[in-house]
């Protein structure tokens, strides 16, 4: 026992030396950190252009690849939304727009934004870039698999987009793909379109599983010395929990897509009952359309949190850094993330209150859904309590954070309407639902993505994005998006149904015309405003102000690499050693208003720092 302890001491003395730049004398016991349990990872260093930038095994490059490809598909989704809004606001203005096209655009917009944009961006993009840096690893634990993961995603996107060019076009079944209409005549793209959609989803899930295993095992196994789970930044907690959800939820989507393909190609009847179409009884029978809905939403609801949890994590870190204050109630935040993640598997059928499933389920799912509001509300309180008595920098990053709080609370509260089973009855399938989920899982996560881009761009590129352009970008996006979705709820109250190619001409709905025009104009503006960011990035890369080391004075590890931007392997000769959580801001008695995670306790011995 004592021998072992002595060994540890040697290791610890070494590490302390590296951190404090060769301080002499024996380091005190308070700086002791347990030695590493596994040897360091061997990395494959690419030398050619192709191995360095194309088939690359560096998580950071893969993260950027994910980010760029997801953004590219996101722009396609954005353009589709413009076309939809053009039709809704100004029917007939686009001559080519038929009902078929409209439904195809609706479907592709939804699927692209939820899966190929948000999920890929948060987990593939931010996950890959940030996890190894934030937990002090040199890379993901399976770099080769990580590379394959991205290229599977690439092929999935190609297959998805190729459906625009097959006979019949892409599927127009709505992003929920509810059978039987999905694979029957009468729905656009019910031939090749839907099969390509199913294939693309299957490829996406396969590729995503490779990436997901990487994120999980890296977080569990490759954290550096001293980085306990309860010292990890909330960003990592969010991405980690979201990945656990994805690993459990995506298989349901996979089997759903597979069974649907079989119904289409082999004529099985998983989801197909006896059907009479154009006077003829089809060769299906005995299947259950509601079974697909259960499979879809068993994936679909956790999917909401697969997007939301990384956003929760990231926003916590951004608010904390730019308020110069620790995140309020860190442990509560961690348990809230884990709790929300667990609960998210018991609420799926709140999407199905009026689906025709046994109505008695309504009691159970309304209760579980409203329970999930409690940990979610706790997170909101803790964000604003982090601002309380902070020292808030009113920069672009903080603006996106504040925009997130407003849109997320707004969307969260409309979620309570929809989750409360009998209130959902009049509102489901109306524009209230559209407004709700765009606010809570469209705009709010987008605010986080943008905040994160402005926050971490100096790390990725070594230069600050332009603040002035950033502020224009923020205000146009926030005010524009809010004026799209806030009034849209009220269309739902009137009773305007979703997925209507033409708005209703009933006397009590004509009042919606003016609002639809307004919403469309706002949507054009918000979409266009996103190109400010692209311009900002290009300009910054050319003439941007160099950021230097740790420009935001942050505590967390990703800013503490020897080189900025970090190189392959991240940490130079020695891995960092972690002594504290990622939130020691404004510690009384400390020289500066932040203490980095690698600062040894003996260096800040006379401050009021709490042990973490």
């Amino acid at each position: 026992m004592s021998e072992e302890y002595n060994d540890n001491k040697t290791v610890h003395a070494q590490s302390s030396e590296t951190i404090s730049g060769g301080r002499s004398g024996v380091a005190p016991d308070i700086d002791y950190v347990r030695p590493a349990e596994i040897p360091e990872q061997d990395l494959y260093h690419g030398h050619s252009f192709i191995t360095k930038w194309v088939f690359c095994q560096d998580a950071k490059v893969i993260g950027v690849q994910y980010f760029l490809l997801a953004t590219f598909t996101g722009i396609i989704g954005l353009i589709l939304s413009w076309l939809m809004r053009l039709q809704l606001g100004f029917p007939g203005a686009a001559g080519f727009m038929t009902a078929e096209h409209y439904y195809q655009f609706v479907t592709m917009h939804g699927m692209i934004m939820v899966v190929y944009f948000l999920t890929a961006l948060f987990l593939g993009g931010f996950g890959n870039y940030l996890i190894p840096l934030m937990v002090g690893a040199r890379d993901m634990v399976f770099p080769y698999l990580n590379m394959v993961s991205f290229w599977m995603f690439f092929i999935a996107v190609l297959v998805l987009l190729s459906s625009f060019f097959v006979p019949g076009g892409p599927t127009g079944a709505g992003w929920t793909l509810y059978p039987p209409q999905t694979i029957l005549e009468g729905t656009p793209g019910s031939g090749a379109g839907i099969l390509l959609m199913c294939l693309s989803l299957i490829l996406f899930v396969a590729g995503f599983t490779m990436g997901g295993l990487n994120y999980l095992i890296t977080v569990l196994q490759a954290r550096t010395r001293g980085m306990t789970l309860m010292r990890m930044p909330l960003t990592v907690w969010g991405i980690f929990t979201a990945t656990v959800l994805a690993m459990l939820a995506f298989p349901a989507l996979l089997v759903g897509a597979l069974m649907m393909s079989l119904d289409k190609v082999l004529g099985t009847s998983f989801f197909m009952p006896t059907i009479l179409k154009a006077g003829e009884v089809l060769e299906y029978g005995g299947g259950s359309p509601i079974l697909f809905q259960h499979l879809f939403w068993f994936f679909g609801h956790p999917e909401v949190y697969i997007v939301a949890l990384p956003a929760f994590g990231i926003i916590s870190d951004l608010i904390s850094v730019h308020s110069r204050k620790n995140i309020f109630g860190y442990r509560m935040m961690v348990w809230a993330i884990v709790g929300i993640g667990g609960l998210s598997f018991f609420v799926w059928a709140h999407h199905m209150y009026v689906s025709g499933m046994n109505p008695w389920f309504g009691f159970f799912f309304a209760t579980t859904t409203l329970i999930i509001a409690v940990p979610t509300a706790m997170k909101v309180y803790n964000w604003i309590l982090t601002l309380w008595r902070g020292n808030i920098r009113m920069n672009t990053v903080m603006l996106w954070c504040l925009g997130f709080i407003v849109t997320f609370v707004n969307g969260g509260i409309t979620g309570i309407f929809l989750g409360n089973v009998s209130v959902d009855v009049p509102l489901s399938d109306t524009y209230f639902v559209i407004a709700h989920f765009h606010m809570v899982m469209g705009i709010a996560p987008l605010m986080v993505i943008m905040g994160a881009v402005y926050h971490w761009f100096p790390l990725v590129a070594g230069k600050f994005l332009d603040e002035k352009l950033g502020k224009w970008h923020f205000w146009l996006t926030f005010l524009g998006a809010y004026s799209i979705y806030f009034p849209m709820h009220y269309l739902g109250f009137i009773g305007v149904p979703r997925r209507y190619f033409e708005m209703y001409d009933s006397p009590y709905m004509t009042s919606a015309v003016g609002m639809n025009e307004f919403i469309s104009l706002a949507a054009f503006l918000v979409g266009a405003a996103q190109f400010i960011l692209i311009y900002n990035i290009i300009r910054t890369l050319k003439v941007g102000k160099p950021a230097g080391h740790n420009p935001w004075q942050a505590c967390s590890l990703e800013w503490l690499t020897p080189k900025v931007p970090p190189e392959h392997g991240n940490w130079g000769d020695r891995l960092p050693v972690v002594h504290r959580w990622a939130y020691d801001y404004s510690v009384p008695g400390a020289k500066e208003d932040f203490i980095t995670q690698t600062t040894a306790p003996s260096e800040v011995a006379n401050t009021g720092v709490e042990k973490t």
Partner: protein
Amino acid sequence: MHPGIIFFLVILGSILFHIFTPWYWTDVASNWGGMDDTITLTFWIGGGVFIAVCLFMVYCVFKFSYKEGRRAEYKPEDKKLEKILTWATTIGVVALLAPGLVIWNNYVNVPKNAIEVDVMAWQWGWQYRLPGKDGKLGTTQVVNINDNNPFGINTDDPYGKDDVMIQSDVLNLENNKPVKILLRSVDVLHNWYVPQFRAKMDAVPGIVTYYWFEPNKVGEYEVLCVEYCGVGHYAMRGGVIVQSDQDYKNWLEQQETYSDLIAKQQNKEINKKKLAKKIN
């Protein structure tokens, strides 16, 4: 301008919009006014939380904007505050959930005296069937459906013979009489929804689903399909006419029953044969 001012104006604007909006519920025309009440309650509690959180945020932004040399407070946790907030939220959530569940309990328990209406959906239209004098609907099967049997009634089911068949997309209902809507579809998902009645449910091929309501305002209403059902979804509309006691009875008497239809078909056959004989 301080960004806090704009955020404040956004909150203020939201409140004013809600108060003065010309876009709001159509007047409720069924017994489900309780749904509107729960929504109003949710607006008060949820809206209150939204306003409180956002105003607190705006206050912090004003009060604690960055000042060189000032230190933020260092206080990682406040267990007491967190406990208070957790319980307050839980109470709020229970206050919203309870009335919601009570109404849902009414929604799934159909009154005994409700008149059953068979609502049959297809791409893209509706037709309706009412029980005849026996008060019971005959059983149906999709495979039975043809020109002579538009509802696919099982011919050996005695309850089916006197069923009233309304081959129109407009359904007449009696005011202040509960109706149990039995939904079925012969092809894909549909949903029979009248905004003024508030209630809705999907029609699912292969099974019969239901919901109920009691219309309480005489008038004409439009039926919308609100579950996406293919390219004609937006055009799939129908109608409901809610009538007083006497008007409804008069209307009902004019409707054809299944046995009327069978008789008519048989007459047609006979006439055809007679005609054939004459020509020969």
